[in-house]
């Protein structure tokens, strides 16, 4: 994902600055042995110099994890995961590891970068090319520093969780695990035991975060976290927009990704969380792709608070995620906008849960699923209105677009309402791209692939409009690329 225009300018003004970041704990370049055990958990905690309470928390999670069964109700099929085959801790990639120039990089990967319009410099960064020209230090660490200064001026804390544990441990302790309890599900449990890093964001009362925060600028993000843990707290009356992910296809030797994201919005606060995910989906048969099992939940704790999830999911061999909102505060609002595209042999079981607890809460769900190839995709949603949720309102629209006769699109909504004044409206439709539509566009000179992309983008328009602009433009391109070869 290229930087926003603003950031690019900033970057250009940095010339040959070296950055020393005192907070990073010196990490020896070694790796924990393969496998998962209590010792590994201790090892991780020790490496990160964590306080006692966090080690205890991790151990508790690990022990619970041992007892929990794998969730089996999702409509996804995969061979059992061998948890013992992974390294649960490894140092950031060293300088000698990466390709020496773009010529060493997989040409297919480069072709995709071109199509997405990613500038050369960023291609190098994304591909991990080493020894980038010294006079143009495109160093994520440096860039992050510049932003850090601006953020600090506003009182915003945006740093890795490991750093947050040193800067503001009380805040972390107060909120960690309060939205997604460790034993929520097997994957979040594993994450609680072995998470290695992730973002911590705190926006003080009344502050509108001066820029969009992005994982792009997180320190050490070169080592794309398998078990990322993100915690965002928006204090009273604050606002933050957070961008996660990348349109560029991301490969990783680690097949299993089990992240946890917790969002907390206090009175009158708003959190906008956008994700564009294009993890490696595997080959045409789905082999070798990434398993993306994420637990994301937002708690609208305060009155008039608001949390919006916007996601464009096009990658991964298997996606399993349900960004959810717990609408506790009166008048709180939860939103979920999603585009999920599956092609070839991908599988996705994704959706949302909106739990209405406070009074006059509102939730809005717009889900657009596109299946092509031999893929299988399920929308799974829960709208739950508790007895005391007076005046709750929900509107859900799930639409599926099927391309080709070998794929599947399924909708499994659960609606549970215990309040008579609550209004729930749910609609779902299924359709395909008609021959008529394609012929119409082609007769106007638009080639077949572009025509498919145009129709699909039209189908997804409502969701694309929710994304911050730069993300939206790339997401549109990504939509087109993801469906290459699916029609005709």
């Amino acid at each position, binding site marked *: 994902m290229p930087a926003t225009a603003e950031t690019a300018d900033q970057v250009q003004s940095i010339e040959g600055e070296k950055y020393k970041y005192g907070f990073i704990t010196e990490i020896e370049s070694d790796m924990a042995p393969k496998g998962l055990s209590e010792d590994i958990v201790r090892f991780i905690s020790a490496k990160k110099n964590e306080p006692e309470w966090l080690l205890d928390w991790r151990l508790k999670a690990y022990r619970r994890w041992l007892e929990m069964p794998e969730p089996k*109700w999702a409509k996804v099929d995969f061979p059992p995961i061998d948890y013992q085959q992974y390294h649960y801790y490894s140092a950031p990639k060293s300088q000698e590891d990466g390709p020496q120039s773009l010529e060493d990089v997989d040409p297919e990967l480069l072709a995709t970068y071109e199509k997405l319009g990613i500038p050369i410099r960023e291609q190098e960064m994304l591909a991990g090319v080493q020894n980038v020209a010294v006079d143009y230090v495109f160093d994520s660490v440096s860039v992050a520093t510049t932003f850090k200064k601006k953020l600090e001026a506003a009182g915003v804390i945006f740093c890795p969780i490991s750093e947050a544990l040193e800067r503001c441990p009380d805040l972390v302790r107060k909120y960690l695990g309060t939205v997604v309890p460790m034993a929520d599900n097997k994957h979040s449990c594993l994450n609680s035991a072995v998470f290695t890093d992730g973002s911590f964001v705190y926006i003080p009362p009344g502050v509108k975060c001066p820029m969009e925060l992005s994982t792009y600028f997180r320190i050490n993000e070169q080592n794309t976290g398998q078990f990322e843990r993100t915690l965002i707290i928006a204090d009273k009356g604050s606002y933050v927009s957070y961008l996660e992910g990348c349109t560029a296809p991301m490969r990783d030797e680690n097949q299993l990704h089990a992240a946890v994201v917790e969002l907390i919005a206090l009175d009158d606060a708003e959190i906008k969380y956008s994700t564009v995910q294009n993890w490696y989906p595997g080959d045409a048969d789905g082999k070798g792709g990434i398993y993306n099992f994420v637990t994301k939940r937002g708690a609208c704790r305060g009155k008039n608070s608001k949390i919006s999830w916007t996601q464009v999911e096009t990658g991964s061999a298997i996606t399993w995620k349900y960004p959810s909102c717990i609408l506790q505060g009166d008048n709180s609002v939860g939103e979920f906008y999603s585009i999920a595209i599956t092609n070839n042999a991908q599988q996705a079981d994704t959706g949302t849960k909106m739990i209405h607890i406070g009074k006059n809460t509102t939730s809005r769900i717009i889900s657009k699923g596109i299946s092509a190839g031999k893929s299988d995709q399920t929308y799974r949603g829960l709208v739950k209105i508790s*007895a005391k949720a007076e005046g709750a309102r929900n509107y859900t629209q799930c639409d*599926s677009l*099927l*391309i*080709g*006769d*070998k*794929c*599947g*699109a*399924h*909708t*499994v*909504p*659960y*609606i*549970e*309402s*215990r*309040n*008579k*004044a*609550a*209004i*729930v*409206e*749910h*609609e*779902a*439709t*299924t*359709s*395909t791209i008609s021959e008529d539509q394609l012929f119409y566009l082609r007769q106007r000179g638009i080639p077949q692939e572009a025509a498919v992309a145009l129709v699909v983008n039209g189908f997804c328009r409502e969701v694309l409009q929710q994304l911050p602009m730069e993300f939206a433009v790339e997401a549109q391109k990504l939509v087109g690329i993801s469906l290459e070869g699916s029609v005709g």
Partner: protein
Amino acid sequence: MSILPFIEGEPIAGRQLIGQDLAWLTTRRQAGIERFQKTGLPTQKLESWKYTRLRPLDDTRYLPVDAGGTDISIDTVPSVGDVAARLVFVNGRLRADLSDISELPEGVRFDTLENVLAEDPLWVEANMGSVAKDADQAMLALNDAMMDSGFVLHVQKGKALTKPVEVVFIGGLTDQAIAYFPRNLIVLEEASQATLVKHHVGHGRAEYFANSVSEIAVGDAANFKHYKVQAESIHATHVATVHTRIGRDANYEGFGLSIGGLLSRTETNITLAGQGANAGLHGAYMMRGNEHCDNTSYIDMAVPNTTCNQVFKGVLDDASRGVFQGKIHVARDAQKADGRMLNKTLLLSNDAEIDSKPELEIYADDVQCAHGMTTGQLDTTALFYLRSRGIPEALARNMLVQSFLGDALEEISDENVREVFLDRVVHWLPAHCFLAGEWKESA
């Protein structure tokens, strides 16, 4: 000590069972017991039973019905009026005095399962278990084991019944808790036509448990209308499992009105097995008190060019609970399928609950499928409008409820049946506003 924990005594040995001389039936019963014992009663861990717990079967032990307990005086037997024939069962036993199958047209067999087992066991053997053959449901296994009543409707090729046939199951009016297990077989041969109306009613204070299974085969180009009123007593547990197969160019129209029972669950499985097949599966549910009503359905659009449509509307008052689980499955090559589903519920109190899961599972791309679900309360603006025109609140509420459900009842194509059902709806409404009748005429 019993094999089935909630049934008193041995289910098979030492009992007078229908068709007990037939070896194949005894084998079926035995197989049913074995299957049932493996799983026991369905629990909430099963996805399909997630929202319904068979609690009365935890707490109560039921006597299977033997002779006696059926010589009860029945004042009125519900009926839709002008019917071709009628069968009435009380606690699972035929009441010949209240039944009449003397004027059936040629080519139509409509009789008790017991009689048909005696007269034409080969036919029953050939047809029983044929539509439900791959089903793996505990309640079906239980019925296989315990079936003790029920009817057969068999219409031969090309024959048409111009008037409906009617079956009434009356339960209750005993001193102890009893259970009965109707097994119904409906076979419409090619190009035949029939309308069936079933009433399930209960009286008295005793608890009872009715577990019925219906197998319906609608032949190519045949036309079947299937109407049911479930008005069991408030001490009753009613579980019905229906398996239907619809042939090429055949048409099925089903409507279930649920207005009674402490706990009721109707699970309908429909397979659209031939091109051009169409199924309409509709219902209305009205619950109060602590009643629990579960309508679960699974429609398999298995071949190309089939259509289905579902409209389910409900009204829930007091602390009642409604469950709607509708799943439409479009098979891989079932192109040009058109499937629609709509579920709307009005909650009249804050203790009522609706759990709805309208599901689509689609493997073909050239299809049109849609579902909609809403829940809410009576439109306060409409209510005010009516009252501002002088209509008392109680009547105004009833008019709105009636108009809300009226839509669903429009799906009943038989006018006479629709009128009768609408009447039941009106009589369920609180304060028995008979003024509604006058209003209907004048409006």
